[in-house]
């Protein structure tokens, strides 16, 4: 039954990879490599500057121009939200939901626990991304594109901890449409 198994992605892997690779080339050619996580700090830096300018003034990071400027990187994040919304609607994939197939098969219909795990995970994701100077976009994908030295330890650490955590958090495997 299709409702009980992980559906296929709209595009096959090679077309999906090609499309995302071309977006990366466009980004590098026109403005700068893809990146997402910096802007979470920028938005809060700009907001903090409005409510507590004296704190921002003496803050080593927030006082720098990069963290006080709403520019290309910010609009890229807004674009992700708009593009994802449109693509999901047009591909018939927009659907309100709060859990996943992998979560359900390991933890049952525990939506509250899924949301709590999501919140804790989100906290670790952004904290980690900023410690690492970038996330799966800015550090991983763009790091490999530019052959940066930092991408090697980042990739090993990201996937090692990602795989161990996924094994512990999702011990059971759902049906997967091939």
């Amino acid at each position, binding site marked *: 039954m299709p409702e009980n198994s*992980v559906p296929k992605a*709209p*595009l096959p*892997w*090679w077309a*999906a*990879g*090609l*499309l*995302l*690779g071309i*977006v990366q080339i*466009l*980004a*590098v050619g026109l403005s700068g*490599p*893809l*990146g997402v996580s910096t802007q*979470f*700090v920028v938005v809060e830096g700009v907001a903090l500057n409005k409510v507590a300018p004296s704190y921002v003034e003496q803050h*080593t*990071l927030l006082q720098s121009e990069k963290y006080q400027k709403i520019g290309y990187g910010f*609009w*890229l994040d*807004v*674009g*992700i*939200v708009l*593009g*994802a919304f449109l693509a999901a609607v047009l*591909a018939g*994939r927009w*659907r309100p939901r709060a859990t996943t197939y*992998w979560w359900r098969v390991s933890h049952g219909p525990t939506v509250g626990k899924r949301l709590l795990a*999501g*919140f*804790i*995970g989100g*906290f*670790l*994701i*952004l*904290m980690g*991304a*900023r*410690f*690492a100077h970038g*996330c799966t976009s800015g550090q991983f994908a763009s790091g490999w594109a530019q*052959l*940066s030295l930092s991408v090697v*330890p*980042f*990739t090993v*650490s990201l996937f*090692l*901890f990602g*795989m161990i955590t*996924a094994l512990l958090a*999702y011990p059971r495997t759902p*049906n997967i449409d091939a």
Partner: protein
Amino acid sequence: MEEQVLGLLIGGLFGAGLILGGLADPDKIIGTLRLKDFHAMRTIAVFVLVGMLGTWMLGQAGLAHPSVKPASLVAVTLGGALLGIGFGLTGYCPGTGLACAAAGRLDALVTVIGMFLGALVFILIHPWAVVPIDKILAKGKVTLPDYTGTKPWMWVAGFCGIGGLILWISGRFGKKAADSSATARP
């Protein structure tokens, strides 16, 4: 103004690509981290290799706008571990979290809210926790060819070989997994 248009355009294509390509799908990400569903792994491999080849060619033509991240080896490894734990727990990362929230996923929206709290705590601890860690084994904004004094094409060629091997092996494993799940069904 131009920055706004460019950002919205490239971000829009990126967000659409993440949804259509199945990376903005936590089930596909967890399937790959559990080595049970190779769609996301293969998509990521092609994404990285095409981006690498294109960026290298743009660089050769003098048309690239690079932005290499500083290689503070301890901070990068620690950050990768924290991000990895969040990634393996949720199936989201910053870009796909935003995309999935926009596709109607309430759990992704809660993850994005967690990300804003993570960013705030990062700001608060930055002066005393992040700055000193960032200085340990700090190699600067350096690339692998710069660091080793080698030519970029050698790295591109080598990584294309490794990427090709990943695609070949995951293709064989994927087939095997599909065969065994097909026979397991009544």
